[in-house]
């Protein structure tokens, strides 16, 4: 059954350097790195030692609390480094890829929910499933009331999943089918995908969501279809990660290939790259940057992605790699009163409203203002298409008022849902960090 959801709140923003719909393939060589931080809420314990040989699909680290929850290597080769930070916190495990790639094989005759769960755990794909509340790696012992996936993103410079899906339709079908044995699966798609994608999703409830960013966030889908109540758990998954599951079931091996959008104003030829997760960013951006200084490389899109640098590695969850100007070399006089024709603002005291929605902006990473208390009212609500008083929720978190956070619906949100509001906020508060802080506090106390 297909249902339609129309949203009004939010903001679409077009940035320079949208990836062209063509792809190249990154050869598997060099160091691949898997970072536990990409699996939030996961306490890692390495199960390999430096120098060990490893196949693609064999575990690198497991969860301390739940050892059957594993994160596996995307490549075969030998473990070149186990990088630890302060207080021996595990930062990453690096694997030097071998010339000949070998995959661990899995038998995939699974049919029941428990079979599927243990297969996903064994193959390290379960770690890609997140749960709400708290937006952390899901707990395999839970029984979710539903599994939610969105197959599109309205974030600026985001990956176009329809393009990533080309010639993998069967994998999507198989992945959704497997998940539907565990719980009811709901998939959110955009109106453009209705004809191509909906027929593949027989085993799921399909919702066509139209509206501006963050309409593609899975939290919006949940809030509008089956909001989370206290004591309930839902699981969420990126659409491309459903393909990982499909590949495992169809081919019997772990294939963590992403169709990565390499995009942004500082990229010479923005396009897609087929690459494994953890790939070196220097290889992904080789000979493809306008300049090497005063740029910001982001694992993900400019709204929810995490800042990294040329020596970093592709995050396990990033579906795009974006490069924008840092802007730390720009000095602007009296900027707060100037017309700033090339800057974007939701406020009509600037002139972006005159330039139409099609205009493409080249924004840098400057904050363009100082942090203040919340002054304007309703600013966050305008960009959060959920039945939640965002400003009040943020204040409840800032005052660490657990009961009020709960009452105002913190279980339903993830930091990414506040990304657009954080962009538009005139008080320049770090809303995503604040929401994460609130979720962590509640998880610890609860």
């Amino acid at each position, binding site marked *: 059954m297909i249902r339609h959801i129309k949203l009004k709140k939010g903001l679409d923003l077009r940035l320079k350097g949208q990836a062209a719909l063509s792809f190249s393939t990154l050869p598997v060589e060099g160091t691949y790195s898997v970072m536990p931080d990409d699996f939030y809420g996961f306490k890692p314990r390495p199960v390999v030692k430096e120098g060990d040989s490893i196949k693609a699909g064999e575990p690198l680290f497991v969860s301390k609390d739940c050892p059957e929850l594993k994160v596996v290597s995307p490549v075969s080769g030998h473990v070149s480094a186990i990088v630890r930070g302060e207080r021996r916190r595990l930062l990453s495990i690096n694997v030097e890829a071998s010339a000949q790639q070998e995959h661990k094989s899995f038998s995939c005759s699974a049919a029941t929910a428990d079979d599927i769960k243990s297969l996903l755990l064994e193959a390290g794909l379960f770690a890609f499933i997140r749960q709400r509340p708290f937006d952390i790696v899901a707990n395999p012992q839970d029984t979710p009331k539903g599994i939610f996936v969105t197959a599109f993103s309205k974030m600026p410079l985001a990956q176009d999943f329809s393009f990533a899906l080309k010639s993998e339709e069967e994998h999507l079908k198989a992945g959704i089918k497997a998940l539907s044995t565990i719980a009811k699966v709901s998939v959110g798609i955009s109106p453009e995908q209705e004809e191509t994608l909906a027929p593949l999703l027989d085993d799921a409830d399909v919702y066509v969501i139209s509206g501006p960013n963050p309409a593609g966030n899975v939290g919006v889908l949940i809030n509008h279809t089956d909001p989370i109540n206290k004591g309930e758990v839902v699981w969420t998954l990126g659409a491309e990660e459903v393909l990982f599951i499909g590949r495992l079931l169809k081919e019997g091996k772990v294939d963590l290939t992403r169709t990565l959008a390499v995009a942004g104003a500082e990229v010479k030829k923005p396009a897609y790259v087929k690459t494994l997760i953890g790939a070196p960013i220097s290889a992904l951006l080789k000979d493809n940057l306008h300049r090497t200084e005063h740029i910001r490389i982001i694992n993900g899109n400019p709204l929810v992605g995490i800042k990294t640098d040329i020596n970093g590695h592709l995050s396990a969850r990033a579906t795009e790699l974006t490069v924008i100007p840092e802007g730390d070399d720009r000095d602007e006089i009296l*900027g707060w009163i100037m017309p700033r024709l090339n800057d974007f603002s939701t406020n009509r005291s*600037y002139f972006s409203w005159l330039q139409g929605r099609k205009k493409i902006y080249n924004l840098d990473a*400057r904050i363009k203002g100082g942090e203040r208390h919340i*002054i304007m009212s*309703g600013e966050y609500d305008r960009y959060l298409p959920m039945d939640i008083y965002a400003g009040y929720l943020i204040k409840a978190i800032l005052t660490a008022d657990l009961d009020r956070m709960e009452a105002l619906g913190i279980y339903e949100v993830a930091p990414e849902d506040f*990304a657009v509001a954080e962009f538009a906020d*005139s008080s320049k508060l770090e809303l995503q*960090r604040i929401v994460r802080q609130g979720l962590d506090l509640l998880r610890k106390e609860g």
Partner: protein
Amino acid sequence: MNFIKKTFDKARPAFNEGGKLKSLRSVFEGFESFLLVPNATSQSGVSIHDAIDSKRIMSMVVIALMPAMLFGMYNIGYQHYMAAGLQGGLMEMFSYGLLALLPKIVVSYVVGLGIEFVVAQYKHEEIQEGYLVTGLIVPLILPINCPLWMMAVAIAFAVIFAKEIFGGTGMNIFNVALIARAFLFFSYSSKMTGDDVWVAKESILGLGKDLPDSFTCATPLAEVGSGNVTASLNDIIVGLIPGSVGETSVVAIALGAVLLLWTGIASWKTMLSVFVGGGLTAALFHATGSTPLEWYEHLVLGGFCFGAVFMATDPVTSARTEGGKYIYGLLIGVIAVLVRVLNPGYPEGMMLAILFMNLFAPLIDYCFVQRNISHRTKRAKANNR
């Protein structure tokens, strides 16, 4: 551009921790971020930001106040020249008003910003822009004859006790400018109301001439109680009547209102409902014979327009929920007219209405937020059954 940057870079060490002028650090940073957009970039969260910031918002409000301020200056001169029986050109009257008002604006900013600088330095925070607006509003809502020292005392009181002790701009419960006005109103009421305070009486730098102490002139709103309003509706709308400096001209205030609504800085919901509430209440009283004024006359007289446009819509002290804004605005309009009509001692009610509703805005919001909360609790109960 480079010159400005170099000057700041050169001066910075002296203001840093351990430098000679470190006690002026907040002032230095205030000026730097005023002249140069800080090129600090985000470290976590979103990597790109909207160009809007509170400097921009506050300066838009200041720009919106400009027509009312400029007209106020002209009207100070106009009223003085009328009272003195002098003939004067537009420029002459405007210059007179400029000279009469300028010291007030300067004193207002010096006192208020001075306190802001000290607090920012003490709290190791950036200077907040909120006072840019308050500092201009205060001289505009006072009678021109209010002595400078009184205004200075009132501003110091309001900034410290209505704003800073709550935590600064964004945390205050009451509108700071109105607290300054209320302070003067209750402490020095002879200088704030009556027939003696609305027309400037001294000659300034050779402009105008000294009026006798016995000269008085009532505002049209005060004349309502004692008999008939002498000013024509035309004069009232244009603003050529005695009154607080910035409040008289409906036209000038309307220009500001357009800018505030267009930029979305003031909420149209609040502004509209103030007028609706005031209009309906006035119409009701007029129908029952309690007030001789028509409903529209109530809306254009006194501080009603200025209050509705610039003070009721203050985002910090007004209701913050969208539904709450309607109720908040409506009640301001109702109470303002209620005070005007039913209170024999004092002709104007806008200040008290807004302050009163400032106090109740959190309660209105509470009801709306609580509705969302109980909705969620009910859903949880229904599901867990």
